[in-house]
C-alpha cells in the first residue's frame, strides 16, 4: 500500500505547477479515485448509458430476455428502435395509462418540493435556535429525541403515518375528536384523509399555505432580483415567468386533495431534523465575539438574529437546501407507501410514476425516456437554484 514518495506532491499553489509534474500529479489523483470511479462506472454509468439507449427503443416485457453480453439473444429479443417516440409520448401525455398527465405531474412535483423544503428549513432553523439558546434545560434530552425522525427507517415511518391517517380510528381523526371535546370546536372527525378528492375547506387551507410559503419566497425572489447587479431591462425579463409560476403553484395548492396534506405533514415530520443538524453546526461556528460586539453597540436580540445569525447561517444552509431539494424531489417512500399516488394520481410524483411505468405497466422503453426527462428537469432546477443563490450572494457580503 505504501508508495514511497520522493517528492511531496500535495496541491502546489496555482501557477507553480510545471508541465510534467502536472501529469504525475494527475495520475496519482486518478489512482485514488479509481476504486470509486470503477464502481460508479459499472453500477451507475453503464446502466444509465443503457437506459439512454432503451429510451429510443420500444423495450417491453418480451425484450427482457435480451442480453447485451450474449450474442445469441440479440437477433431474437432486441427491441425495435423507435426514435424519439417515447419522449414525445411522455411529454404529450400520450400514454394509455390512467391519470397520466406529465404537466400536472411536474407541477405537483414542484409544489411538493417547494412546500417541503420551505418547512424543513424553517422548522430546522427555529428548532436549532431554540436548542442553541443559553442555559437551556434538558438540551441533551432534546438532542437525542430530535434525531429519531431521521434515525427510524423511512418505510416504517410511512406505514405508521398511513395507519394514523386512516378514516376509522386513525390517530389523526381521533386527536381531532379529542380536541373538539376539550375545546368545544366542531372540526370534522370523519376525514377521508387518503381518498377524498375535494380539497379541504373548499381550497381555503391551500390558499393559506400558499400565502405562508409562496409570498415570502416571492418577496425574497423579487428583492434578490432587483438587488442583483444586472442591467435593468434584464431584470424585467423573468417577471412574467415568476408571476406565471406563482399563479400556477397557488392553483396547485388550492386544488390539492386532502391526501397532499397527509403526505406533506408526514414528510415535514421526517425532514426537519437534517436541517436542524446543519443549522446547529453553523450556529456553533459563529464566534461569540460578534454578538458581544453587537450588544455593546446596543443591538436588540432581533437585530442580532437578522444581522448576524441569519446571514452567517446562509453558507451552510445553501448546500443543505440544494441536497434537500434533490432528495425531496425524488422522495419515493412517503408517497408510494402512504397514498400510492392516489386519489386518481393527484399525489403522484415523477419518481413514483417512473416506478409504476417499470413495475406495473412494464413499459421499459417509455420508463427510460421518462427517467431521462426527469433527470433534465432536476438538472435545470439545480442550475437555476445555483444561479439564483450565487446572484444573491453579493447582496449579503
Amino acid at each position, binding site marked *: 500500500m505504501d508508495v514511497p514518495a520522493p517528492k511531496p506532491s*500535495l496541491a502546489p499553489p496555482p501557477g507553480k505547477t510545471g508541465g510534467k509534474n502536472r*501529469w504525475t500529479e494527475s495520475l496519482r489523483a486518478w489512482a485514488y479515485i479509481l476504486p470509486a470511479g470503477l464502481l*460508479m462506472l459499472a453500477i451507475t454509468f453503464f446502466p444509465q448509458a443503457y437506459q439512454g439507449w432503451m429510451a429510443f427503443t420500444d423495450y417491453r416485457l418480451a425484450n427482457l430476455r435480451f442480453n447485451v453480453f450474449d450474442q445469441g439473444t440479440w437477433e431474437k429479443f432486441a427491441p425495435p428502435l423507435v426514435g424519439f417516440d417515447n419522449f414525445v409520448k411522455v411529454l404529450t401525455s400520450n400514454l394509455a395509462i390512467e391519470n397520466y398527465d406529465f404537466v400536472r405531474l411536474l407541477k405537483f412535483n414542484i409544489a411538493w418540493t417547494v412546500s417541503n423544503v420551505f418547512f424543513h428549513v424553517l422548522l430546522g432553523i427555529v428548532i436549532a435556535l431554540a436548542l442553541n439558546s443559553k442555559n437551556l434545560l434538558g438540551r441533551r434530552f432534546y438532542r437525542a*429525541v430530535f434525531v*429519531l425522525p431521521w434515525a427510524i*427507517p423511512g418505510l416504517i415511518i410511512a406505514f405508521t403515518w398511513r395507519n394514523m391517517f386512516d378514516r376509522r380510528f386513525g390517530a389523526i381523526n381521533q386527536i381531532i375528536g379529542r380536541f373538539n371535546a376539550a375545546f368545544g370546536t366542531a372540526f370534522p372527525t370523519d376525514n377521508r384523509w387518503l381518498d377524498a378528492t375535494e380539497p379541504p375547506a373548499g381550497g381555503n387551507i391551500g390558499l393559506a399555505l400558499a400565502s405562508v410559503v409562496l409570498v415570502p419566497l416571492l418577496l425574497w425572489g423579487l428583492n434578490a432580483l432587483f438587488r442583483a447587479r444586472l442591467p435593468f431591462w434584464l431584470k424585467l425579463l423573468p417577471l412574467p415567468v415568476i408571476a406565471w409560476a406563482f399563479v400556477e403553484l397557488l392553483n396547485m395548492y388550492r386544488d390539492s386533495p386532502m391526501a397532499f396534506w397527509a403526505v406533506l405533514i408526514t414528510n415535514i415530520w421526517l425532514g426537519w431534523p437534517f436541517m436542524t443538524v446543519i443549522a446547529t453546526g*453553523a450556529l456553533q461556528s459563529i464566534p461569540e465575539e460578534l454578538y458581544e460586539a453587537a450588544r455593546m453597540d446596543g443591538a436588540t436580540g432581533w437585530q442580532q438574529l437578522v444581522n448576524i445569525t441569519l446571514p452567517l447561517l446562509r453558507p451552510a444552509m445553501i448546500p443543505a437546501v440544494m441536497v434537500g431539494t434533490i432528495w425531496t424531489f425524488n422522495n419515493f417512500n412517503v408517497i408510494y407507501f402512504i397514498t400510492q399516488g392516489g386519489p386518481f394520481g393527484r399525489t403522484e410524483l*415523477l419518481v413514483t410514476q417512473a416506478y409504476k411505468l417499470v413495475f406495473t405497466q412494464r413499459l421499459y422503453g417509455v420508463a427510460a425516456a421518462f427517467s431521462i426527462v426527469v433527470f433534465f428537469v432536476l438538472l435545470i432546477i439545480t442550475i437555476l437554484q445555483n444561479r439564483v443563490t450565487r446572484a444573491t450572494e453579493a447582496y449579503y457580503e
Partner: protein
Amino acid sequence: MNNPRLQALVKQVLLQVFLLSVTLAVIFPILWMVSIAVDPRNIDKPLELTLIPPGASFESFRQVLFEPSPLLCSNPGDVATCMTFGKLLVNSLYVSLGTAFFAVILGASAAYAFSRFRFIGRQAGMLAFIALLMLPATATVTPLYVLLGQVKFASEPLRTTLLGLAIAYTSGTLPFAIWNLKGYFDTVPEELEEAALIDGASVTQAFFRIILPLSLPALAVTVLLGFMTGWTEFVLAWLFLDNPARFTLAMALRSLQGQFTTPWSIFFAMALLMSIPPVLLFFALQRYIVSGLTVGGVKG
C-alpha cells in the same frame, strides 16, 4: 419585565413549552406503534387513544423474535427452512455494514484526491459525481439486473448475493459521501501534512495517519448514511435476491404488508425491533454528526 432573572425564567419556560410540544409531535407516532404492537387483539388500530391497551402483552414481540416467518421459506413445506428474526438480522447487518464499509473506503479515497490534488479532469470528475446524485435510478434496474447477473462471484451471479446488493447500494451512497468528505478534508490544514512529508512520511501515510484521524466526524456520517441505505432499502433487494435464505429485515417487513390483511401487531413489533439498531448507531455517533455534516459546508 426589567428584572433579568425574571426575563430569563420567562424565556426558559417559553422554550420548554415549544421544545416539549416538538417532542410530543416526534414521539407520538412511535407511541402509536408501541400501542398497536402490544395490543393482544391484533387489530389494525387502537379503538381509542390509549398507550397501553387492555390486556397488553409482548406476545407479538415474542412471535417476531422466536418464531419462523411462514412467508419466507426456501421450501414452504418445511418449517426448518423458514427465516427467523436472527437470520434476517444477520443478512441485514451484512448488507448494511458492507455498504457502510465500501462507502467509507472508496469515498474517502476519492474525496482525498478531489480535495488535495489539482489534476486534469478534477472539475469534470467532481461535476460527474454530483450529477449522479440527481439521476433517478428506477429505470436502470433492468440493465443493472442483467449486468450483475453476468458477473460471477464464487460460482453464483453477483446479483443474487448480499455482496452484490451491498455494492449496488454503495454506488447510491457514494456521490453524497464524496461530496461531503471532500468538503471536510478541505478544512484540514495542509500544513499538517506538509510537516509529516518533511519528516519523511509518504503521501499515503500522511493520508492514513493525519487526514483520516482528523476527519472522524465526516467518516462517521458516511458510515451512518451507508448503514441506513443498506438497512432500509428493499426495492432492489426484492428484485435481485432469489433465495429466501438471503432476505433482509426490510424485505420481511414489507412482506408482512399483505394485499388484503396485515398482521398489525406483528408488523409494528417487527418495525420497532428493526428501528433499534439504526437508532443506537445514531446515538453512538451523535457527537460526530453535527460537525461531520456541517464543517465542510461552513468553510467550503
